[in-house]
């Protein structure tokens, strides 16, 4: 069975044609020329279409069904956004065309910057970061630049909660900070006393997600901000969970200084099987001067790229960010309007609470109160009583045609399963999912092997990840087939 495009290759096949050349040929000096051709496949156009169509069918996308992947906000990706981003006036622009040729593109970027500032309460924005983690890195560098601009160079640490995404500590490290972890209290919130005892004049700030990764709002946020600010630190908002609070509460009003957003979560742009995303960063007034170069500005109705920014942290990538992703996000915001965004957050929260209420009889809910846009359940009962792990249950969900929720995260919940339905799912979908979850709880009791061996119905079943990591095979080799 042909598996890879390389297996379809046959000498002399080609899916491509160039116009006849009408100019002389130029030969590159042999000294600089390649010795051996790159072994690319030789295939026809139909080979290409069939191959990629057939492998695509082994994927699972949001358009196929429910994707309650906690922390990832797998909402519907509107098709209109795609159409708009494919307009030639956006996708066929060269990044170095002079400003007067691209006023529309600059306007779109400028408007998006303004809208994101309004949503977060901030005063300035950059669209340059290409993803959430890239935005975190940018934001933390801005915090460092701020401290250094005040000759405050003894701050070497960044505080991160024990429930944080792994990117938080990793991003703090990219800016050269040592990471210290603050624990969560028994309510699942940042332990205020622990924070107060850690926060000192050698600490640059605190990175926080709010609502946090347990889906709980940090109610003490004003107090947390005060503790950090009183010692001269800054507060970083990880926008991973912004989908819970659009139009309801704003990071700036909570006391945050820097925010990144994930347009591929909150603003409905597609995840693309792992990217491209987009991670704009918004900051309060006094941090604007540290934003990466250039910033899109406007003067007398003319848009321009401002490179003259001596305090800027520099660049984090070439050009201006994932512009076409930004176009999709802009289209989304304009489709929804202020009422729509608020209703999206309200419905996301309603949907999460509805699932939680529907499954709580069969699963432990470690923090049993209203959640925000997601909640974490624990499969510890199933594990202890029936030897069924959360992984087993997640894999069983595949058999029922769902993408499983995020599992074993945050690490502070044993056998955790983090469920985020998003607002674009209807009640019938949620009802079916609740029914299946409860059925799986029943299966755990009656037939644990069914779960240990799940999935049963997928194109491939559980994989041997140990061999993959011990003896990595990371590319196709011709010899394999001989």
């Amino acid at each position, binding site marked *: 069975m042909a598996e890879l495009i390389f297996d379809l290759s046959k000498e002399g096949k080609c899916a491509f044609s160039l116009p006849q050349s009408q100019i002389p040929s130029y030969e590159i000096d042999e000294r600089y020329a390649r010795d051996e051709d790159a072994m690319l496949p030789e295939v026809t156009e139909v080979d290409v279409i069939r191959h990629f169509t057939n492998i695509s069918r082994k994927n699972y996308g949001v358009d196929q069904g429910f994707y309650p992947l906690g922390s990832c906000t797998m909402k519907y990706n509107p098709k209109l956004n795609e159409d708009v981003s494919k307009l030639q006036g956006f996708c066929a622009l060269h990044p170095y065309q002079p400003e007067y040729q691209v006023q529309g593109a600059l306007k779109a970027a400028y408007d998006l910057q303004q809208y994101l500032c309004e949503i977060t309460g901030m005063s300035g924005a950059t669209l340059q970061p290409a993803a959430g983690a890239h935005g975190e890195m940018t934001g933390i560098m801005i915090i460092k630049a701020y401290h250094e601009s005040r000759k405050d160079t003894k701050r070497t640490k960044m505080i991160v909660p024990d429930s944080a995404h792994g990117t938080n500590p990793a991003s703090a490290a990219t800016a050269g900070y040592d990471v210290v972890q603050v624990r969560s209290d028994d309510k699942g919130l940042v332990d205020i006393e622990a924070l107060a005892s850690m926060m000192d004049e050698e600490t640059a700030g605190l990175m926080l997600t709010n609502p946090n990764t347990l889906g709980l709002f940090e109610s003490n946020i004003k107090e947390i901000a005060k503790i950090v600010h009183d010692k001269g630190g800054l507060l970083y908002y990880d926008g991973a969970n912004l989908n819970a609070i659009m139009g309801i509460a704003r990071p700036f009003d909570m006391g945050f200084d820097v925010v990144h957003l994930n347009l591929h979560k909150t603003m409905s742009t597609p995840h693309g099987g792992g990217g491209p995303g987009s991670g704009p960063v918004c900051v309060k007034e006094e941090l604007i001067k540290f934003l990466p170069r250039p910033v899109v500005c406007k003067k007398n109705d003319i848009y321009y790229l401002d490179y003259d920014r001596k305090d800027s942290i520099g660049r984090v990538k070439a050009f201006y960010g994932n512009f076409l992703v930004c176009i999709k996000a802009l289209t989304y915001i304009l489709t929804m309007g202020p009422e729509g965004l608020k209703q999206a957050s309200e419905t996301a929260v309603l949907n999460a609470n509805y699932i939680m209420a529907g499954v709580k009889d069969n699963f432990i809910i470690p923090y049993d109160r209203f959640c925000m846009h997601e909640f974490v359940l624990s499969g510890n009962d199933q594990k202890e009583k029936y030897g069924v792990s959360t992984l087993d249950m997640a894999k069983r969900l595949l058999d029922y045609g769902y993408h499983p929720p995020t599992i074993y995260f945050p690490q502070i919940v044993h056998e955790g399963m983090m469920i985020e339905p998003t607002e674009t799912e209807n009640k019938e979908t949620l009802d079916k999912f609740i029914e299946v979850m409860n059925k799986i709880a029943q299966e755990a009791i009656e037939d644990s092997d069914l779960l240990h061996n799940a999935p049963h119905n997928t194109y491939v079943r559980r994989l041997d*990840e*140990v061999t993959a*990591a*011990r003896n990595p095979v990371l590319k196709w080799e011709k010899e394999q087939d001989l």
Partner: protein
Amino acid sequence: MKFTKDHEWIKKEGKYAYVGITDYAQQQLGDIVYVDLAEEDLVLQQGDVLCAVESVKTAAEVFMPVSGRVIEANHELEESPEKLNENPYEAFLAKITIDDESELDDLMTEDEYNEFLESEAE
């Protein structure tokens, strides 16, 4: 053989000592897929990172039980990291010199280590 709270073992043989991870440590890690071996000839203090051990879903650093110099890394583990799972007390990670033998006194005996594991479990 002596043990640390980070689940390393150290066994003195002549003027050198061998360092590895305990059976408990390998069980916690699961199937070990890769060992990032120590750089030979490196001089390290007690508690410094000696090397790292990776399984599919976790990675753990291994610390120097005592101060000393890395004489030899166990290159056999490059090809066969599973030996750490199969026989943790045979598959050493590094052969080292010991700067100050009195540092060994700070470490736990086998009985003390077993007690330590039990107290941790509670």
